[in-house]
């Protein structure tokens, strides 16, 4: 583990290849303090009171860390216990028990960050009450500003401090000035981006009078920390989730069990079979030097990453929604077969829906949306997507990824103004839609290169190597075979859903059909789990 800031890379950009290091959650990591630094006193204090104790008692190293991945046995055992107890309790006790379980779940990742989530919860709870308690617009604005400042401030500190420090040092270096090393490094608390956005949506909604302030602190704490969606979404809205927390929920019935089972099965399949197996191929391509690979190999790796990240995140969301159904909660749909989108706008209506609608409601529309002329609409689109990219991580590659999607959306607007929506015009028929799907998929894939690459140079080198040496290699043959084997049935199933325009089409089929499909899923989970399991990518965001 590094003790100092890496000088040439953003310390908080974490991608799968570096997960092993990132999972070592030791919180603050101390380096030799810069004697002239303004945080010298803080650093000395920390070194004195943390490092010494750490050395003596192994305190920091011995913090309990049992992350409960959704594809781990520990999570399913935990869930079994939670469900057993939960369904024997009344509504108020259910909420208290769920809150306890959620804090336990989060504490298993790193209990120190419980204080952070508790602080955010407490501050936003009282901020919302203060907003609702007055009709004075100035006071209301002051409190919502305070909530935004605190929420985004914490997020900025933990997520972007390292990034801005690297950039600051780059500028200082350019000016010939001495680098500034604060002497400590902040580790990103898991799920901070998700619960911060969820908390912000609450105070903003109370400010906009879309939501009544929550009366019970424990209910609000559960809204923020509800464990199935705590660390990777879906990012719920207060007017959707909070009433479900505050009011008695439906008992589990056959229909809920059926829908939950379907979601859990598909979620595990997406994660364990699709994402992890695609990661095996993608990690190789993105880990190799671009010069070592030929064009088809790089293309295969990009396709593999496209399905890795889809399987990973959509799988997590499906499991989260599925287990919530078993507890009587209805979370919002987060993915709707995104690679069947026929244009970039449709893609964002199907991909990470909870984030894209959040950005639309709390960023794009307040910026002016499409109400202030074409020029400002384009500006707003690009700005929203760039900030959306930055939300994913503190690195230029994420910013560029967001920017590319902004450009796609703008270009699509221009195209739609002249020729009609790509892939949606009836006059172009099925062929037009197929072409639209293929074009959109490749535009999205191009953006994924920047999302996954270690740096801008790495991404450009990979794209450049797409044009070199198109010949078959063992890797190409194996990769194509594995992709057909794993992705073929998935795409066939999604096409079947797509033709019915129903994400729950399977739930309505006959029970023998469902049994056969579930048996296929279980056997695939048993026999074809990846030889090298990969952590959920979005837990880092």
């Amino acid at each position, binding site marked *: 583990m590094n003790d100092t800031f890496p000088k040439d890379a953003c310390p908080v950009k974490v991608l799968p*290849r570096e997960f*092993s290091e990132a999972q070592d959650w030791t919180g603050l990591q101390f380096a030799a303090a810069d004697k002239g630094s303004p945080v010298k006193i803080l650093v000395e204090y920390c070194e004195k009171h943390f490092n010494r104790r750490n050395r003596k008692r192994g305190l920091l190293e011995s913090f309990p860390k*049992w992350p409960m991945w959704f594809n*781990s*046995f*520990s999570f399913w*055992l935990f869930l079994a216990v939670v469900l057993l107890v939960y369904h024997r309790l009344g509504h108020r006790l259910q909420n208290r028990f769920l809150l306890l379980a959620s804090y336990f779940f989060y504490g298993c990742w790193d209990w120190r960050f419980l204080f952070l989530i508790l602080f955010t919860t407490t501050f936003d709870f009282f901020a919302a009450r203060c907003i609702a308690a007055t009709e004075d617009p100035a006071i209301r604005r002051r409190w919502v500003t305070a909530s935004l400042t605190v929420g985004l401030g914490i997020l900025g500190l933990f997520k972007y401090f390292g990034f801005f420090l690297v950039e600051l040092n780059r500028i200082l270096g350019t000016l010939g000035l001495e680098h500034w090393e604060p002497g400590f490094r902040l580790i990103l608390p898991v799920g901070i981006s998700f619960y911060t956005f969820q908390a912000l949506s609450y105070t903003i909604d109370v400010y906009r009078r879309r939501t009544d302030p929550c009366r019970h602190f424990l209910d609000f704490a559960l809204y923020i920390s509800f464990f199935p969606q705590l660390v990777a979404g879906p990012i719920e809205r207060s007017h959707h989730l909070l009433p479900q927390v505050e009011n008695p929920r439906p008992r589990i019935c*056959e229909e809920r*069990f*059926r829908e939950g*089972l379907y979601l859990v099965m598909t979620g595990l399949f997406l994660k364990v079979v699709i994402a992890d197996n695609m990661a*095996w*191929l993608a*990690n*190789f391509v993105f*880990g*190799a030097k671009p010069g070592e690979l030929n064009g088809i190999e790089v293309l295969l790796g990009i396709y593999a990453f496209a399905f890795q990240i889809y399987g990973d995140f959509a799988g997590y969301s499906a499991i989260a929604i599925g287990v919530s159904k078993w507890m009587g909660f209805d979370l919002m749909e987060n993915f709707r077969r995104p690679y069947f989108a026929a244009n970039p706008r449709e893609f964002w209506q199907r991909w990470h829906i909870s984030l894209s609608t959040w950005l639309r409601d709390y960023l794009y529309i307040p910026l002016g949306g499409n109400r202030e002329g074409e020029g400002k609409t384009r500006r707003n689109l690009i700005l929203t997507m760039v900030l959306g990219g930055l939300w994913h991580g503190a690195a230029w590659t994420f910013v560029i990824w967001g920017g590319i999607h902004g450009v796609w959306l703008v270009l699509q607007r221009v195209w739609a103004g002249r020729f009609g929506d790509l892939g949606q015009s009836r006059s172009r028929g099925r062929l037009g839609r197929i072409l639209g799907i293929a074009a959109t998929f490749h535009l999205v894939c191009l953006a994924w290169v920047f999302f996954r690459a270690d740096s801008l140079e790495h991404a450009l080198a990979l794209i450049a190597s797409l044009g070199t040496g198109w010949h078959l*290699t*063992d*890797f190409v*043959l*194996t*990769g194509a*075979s*594995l992709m057909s*084997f794993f992705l073929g049935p998935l795409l066939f199933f999604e096409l079947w859903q797509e033709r019915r325009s129903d994400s729950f089409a399977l739930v309505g089929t006959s*029970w*023998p059909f*469902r*049994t056969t499909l*579930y*048996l296929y899923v*279980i*056997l695939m989970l*048993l*026999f*074809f*789990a990846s*030889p*090298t399991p990969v952590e959920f990518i979005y837990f880092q965001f």
Partner: protein
Amino acid sequence: MKPEIKVVISLAFSLLVFEVLSRSGESYLSADVRQMLAQDEIPQKIREVKRDGRASILVIGNSLARAGIIPDEIARSIRSPNGGTAEVFYITPDASGINEWAAAYRRGFPDAPDTERPDLVLIVTGPGHLADQLVTSPERLSAYHVAEHDRWEVGMNWLPGLGERCRFALAGASRLFANRERVRPLLFYRLVPGYEVTAQRLNQSINSGKDLPVERDESAERFGLLLDSLGIPPERVLIAAVPLPWQYELPEAVLAEASARNIFVYGEAAASTWPSVAFPDGYHIAPEFGRVFSRQLGDLLRRRVRASGEALGDPRSDPFSVAVDENEKRGGGDLPQ
């Protein structure tokens, strides 16, 4: 009955059918499984051999031991009083180490009287196989090596996390689960073009990114457990370090455990330089060089058994006699340079 209950019951029934199929067909999965299944027959075979008045030698190790120990070279070293040759048995599952060896021996010979235990135990090891290590496959350990009476102890104390314990428990109940990772290579190596080359390339690239293992204090508690479970006099136990392309020494903790029990450790072959042609795959010793190594061990065994017989004093208590044959005349000094 509600439809979803039917789904769940049908799934459970289907998995039961697959479980029955996997139990009946598991020996077809790989030679390694066949070998592990055969381990359970070793105690019975040893009893039969001893009933015939012949000696039994049990080799414990992994594929390195299988490559390095040529049975007729070892068996030829020792003759039973009635003149019959000794029988050599192997507990040598692939990619195994002290966890599997200790568990498998305790499963095979739980409370057997001395007369039903092997007459001589040969533990053949590489550099790190006898030191305590993490259980790499709780499934294999649970399904094929651990005895019922050790299950709780192993599950609670040998495995680091809840996930491993769950896998261990499930594999104890289900062979379908225990052997689930064997299906993928079985199919892909045969059906996917270029899979073997690609898998090697990809795994190499993954492993090259990993940090080197951190040096840590080694312990050998499970090795001590194995030695304590052997149930035969220390003179009848030999620990041998197998030749590898590089020279090495066994860990201090292992040597200390053996020394505390007066068990002889033969490390010369590991301390010697063997020619590179001796390791065609870069790891396992070739048969002709394995024969040389076996001969060295045979000579050593002969000397130790002779000493053991003299020490015991009563020929009736000692089923061995020393085989003086061409082997001894040849001596053990033919170690290749």
